């Protein structure tokens, strides 16, 4: 039974968001991962998205983008009445609770993220999804469908039963092994089975992938339960390390855990999202591949990691930014693959229907060739935050930063595509100028504090003044009493809120308050959300911009109470697991765009931190005086 057929039989979702053709709502997905790749699991226990061995590999399950042709792996009761989900506290281990007329069962899903050292020191699969079902009361009949499809659903697979080793198929450079402690019937390029579980009975499954033989196969005995326990404990140890004691601790830890899931541990890169082509406008063509790393998120991400005391991750991310971009330095692309390569050219997968007919499905990203002059400022600000708070910038890093600074000196006055990556041409974006100013300002401050040697400080000061003057004159619209998106323009976009975040303007200044009033008026929704900019194309409110608003208020643009109210309102738009997409449908509150979105979760953490700092009367990390306190290590690595 394909995903579209089964929707007619069961309606197990509390959210009631499944449409007639079996499409779950975007926010009805959960994520599991191992810091190398990730899978999306629907409310009815179907893994509808999986790319192995890395985030940007071709999908083996892609029912997320095509209910007929995309593969999936479903483990769900035949007739559930209610379904609830949660992550095991402070972990990325997913539990789906099924309740039917005759019994209850719990499905546990985990992508076994054994730390690299454990993998190196013992026999553990390279990549492994463990799924376990325990019947906790009565009896529950389960149906299992395992339907892999190679290359985003384009290629059928030949599944073979290999004795008691399990089922095997080969796709690309690797072999997949599915093991289970219940019999599965191989048919139609997949495997299926039904079983009635009675109280305390357990089903165990392991799907592993390896490009090296001999592969390691997981036993399906109690040792598998022990692995789930170890993985849970490792996640909890990591999650509970977070240095945050405010009122939003659960949301902050969930966001940190989501961010960690989107980290590619071998390189330190962080992908924007694990998916491609989940639409910003359902049924339309605003569908992009986000399985790459955008430098524009650098400053926010480093700030979030540093303040939560995840220094190892911050250091790895900074190293990745400075080392992986070597081939193009001092120029920077706006996005890279997890290993710092140029992202693939954009192409369309015409064989896929797209999520709820949102065509085309794209892989690769054409924004790779765009010019965004903000990225140098992002990377320099990230490095500056790192250095101001105890991190070491070695001589090599310093030279790289000076190279970036000199590039900004030569190019800051150019038009570019800007932060929102429109495909309509280049303009003189205020946000890009702001980040060029930030680049100059931070390099000067680093030099003044003796953390950067050999920089042409006088040149940077002079350029910083020039950029400031240009922003203050040409990005300020006297008629509107507001900063505007492009020089000499009269439109606004939400990135203007960041003028205070980067320290260009006090959040409480008359100019920022005027800008904020205009933003609310022109880009606000009746429910208090914010669009990123005004445009003809339909899209949702931009989630991170909403968190920027909360943070702007916390930084002094409003009262603490106002900041808390905005933040509390935004909490309601998370799914029940605490996950956010890129955008929020202002009418239904549904998530839109790729899911979950690192940028949004970074925004949540940033806003929560700034609110906490306001409560404590502290300054934002980026604007605090330097500290010599050596950092601690977050220990748990993957």
């Amino acid at each position, binding site marked *: 039974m394909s995903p579209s057929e089964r929707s007619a039989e069961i309606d197990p979702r509390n959210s009631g968001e499944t449409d007639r053709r079996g499409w779950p709502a975007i926010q009805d997905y959960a994520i599991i991962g191992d810091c190398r790749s990730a899978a999306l699991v629907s409310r009815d226990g179907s893994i509808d998205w999986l790319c192995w061995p890395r985030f940007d590999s071709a999908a083996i399950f892609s029912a997320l983008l095509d209910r007929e042709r995309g593969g999936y792996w479903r483990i769900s009761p035949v007739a559930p009445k209610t379904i609830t989900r949660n992550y095991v506290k402070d972990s990325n281990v997913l539990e789906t609770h099924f309740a039917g007329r005759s019994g209850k069962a719990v499905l546990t899903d985990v992508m076994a993220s054994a730390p690299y050292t454990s993998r*190196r020191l013992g026999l553990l699969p390279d990549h492994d999804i463990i799924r376990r079902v325990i019947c906790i009361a009565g009896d529950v009949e389960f149906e299992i469908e395992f339907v892999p499809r190679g290359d985003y659903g384009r290629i059928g697979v030949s599944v073979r039963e290999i004795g008691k080793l399990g089922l095997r198929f080969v796709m690309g450079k*690797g072999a997949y092994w599915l093991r289970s402690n219940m019999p599965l019937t191989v048919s139609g390029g997949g495997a299926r089975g039904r079983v009635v579980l009675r109280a305390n009975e357990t089903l165990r499954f392991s799907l592993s992938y390896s490009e090296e*033989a001999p592969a390691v*196969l997981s036993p399906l005995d109690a040792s598998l339960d022990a692995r789930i326990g170890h993985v849970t404990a490792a996640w909890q140890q990591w999650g509970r390390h977070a240095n945050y004691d405010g009122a939003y601790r659960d949301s902050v830890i969930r966001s940190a855990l989501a961010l960690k899931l989107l980290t590619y541990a071998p390189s330190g890169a962080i992908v924007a999202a694990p998916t491609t082509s989940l639409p910003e406008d359902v049924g339309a063509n605003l569908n992009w591949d986000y399985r790459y790393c955008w430098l524009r998120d650098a400053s926010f991400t480093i700030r979030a990691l540093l303040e939560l005391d995840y220094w190892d991750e911050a250091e790895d991310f900074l190293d990745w930014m400075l080392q992986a971009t070597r081939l193009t330095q001092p120029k920077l692309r706006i996005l890279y693959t997890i290993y710092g390569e140029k992202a693939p050219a954009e192409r369309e997968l015409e064989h896929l229907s797209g999520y709820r007919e949102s065509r085309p499905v794209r892989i690769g990203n054409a924004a790779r060739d765009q010019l965004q002059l903000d990225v140098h400022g992002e990377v320099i600000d990230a490095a500056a935050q790192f250095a101001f708070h105890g991190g070491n910038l070695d001589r090599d890093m310093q030279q790289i930063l000076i190279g970036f600074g000199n590039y900004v000196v030569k190019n800051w006055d150019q038009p570019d595509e800007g932060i929102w990556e429109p495909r309509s041409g280049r303009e003189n974006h205020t946000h890009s100028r702001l980040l060029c100013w930030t680049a100059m300002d931070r390099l000067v401050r680093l030099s003044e504090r003796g953390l950067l040697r050999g920089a042409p400080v006088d040149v940077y000061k002079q350029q910083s003044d020039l950029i400031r003057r240009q922003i203050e004159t040409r990005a300020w619209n006297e008629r509107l009493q507001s900063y505007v998106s492009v020089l000499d323009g009269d439109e606004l976009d939400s990135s203007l809120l960041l003028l205070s975040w980067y320290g260009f303007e006090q959040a409480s200044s008359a100019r920022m308050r005027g800008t904020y009033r205009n933003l609310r008026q022109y880009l606000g929704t009746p429910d208090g959300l914010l669009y990123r900019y005004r445009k003809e194309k339909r899209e949702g409110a931009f989630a991170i911009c909403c968190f920027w608003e909360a943070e702007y208020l916390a930084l002094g643009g409003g009262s603490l109470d106002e900041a808390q109210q905005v933040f509390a309102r935004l909490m309601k738009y998370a799914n029940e697991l605490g996950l956010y997409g890129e955008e929020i449908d202002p009418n239904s509150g549904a998530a839109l765009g790729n899911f979950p979105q690192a940028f949004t979760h970074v925004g949540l953490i940033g806003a929560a931190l700034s609110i906490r700092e306001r409560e404590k009367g502290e300054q934002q990390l980026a604007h605090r005086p330097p500290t010599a306190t050596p950092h601690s290590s977050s220990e748990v690595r993957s």
Partner: protein
Amino acid sequence: MNWTSWLLSGFVATLALSTLLATSHGLGLTRMNLPYLIGTFVTPEREKARVYGFMIHLVNGWAFSILYALIFEARHIANWWFGALLGLAHALFVLTVVMSLMPGIHPRMASEQHGPNANRQLEPPGFMALHYGIQTPVSVVLSHVVFGVILGSLYQLAT
């Protein structure tokens, strides 16, 4: 053939065999990582297994080169094509006999009859090592033929 020549030719031939197998792995012709397969006889630690496996394979190559030398002496033939024939026979022996015996002799290898358990979790090679990739027999045969060609040629030069 003196000891030094034997050591050198055995080393060169084994190195060539290892290189060809590693290249086959890198090119995606086979998933088999021979040093890892051999090294896990003595340790479950992945990184160490690769190093130990390489060293064991080197010693093994030397040992087999003695056997090749004895056959060259016994048959009074030592040239590249006879070496290639011996390499072919060697490869077929490895693929059919050694690989099928592997689950029984490898302390960490599972079998199709019993499946994996806490002590035995490695995927067995299957007939002709086909579990490790459909082109695995080709790369094994090719690398062993080259092994034999090098030994036959060097033995001919040394005598």
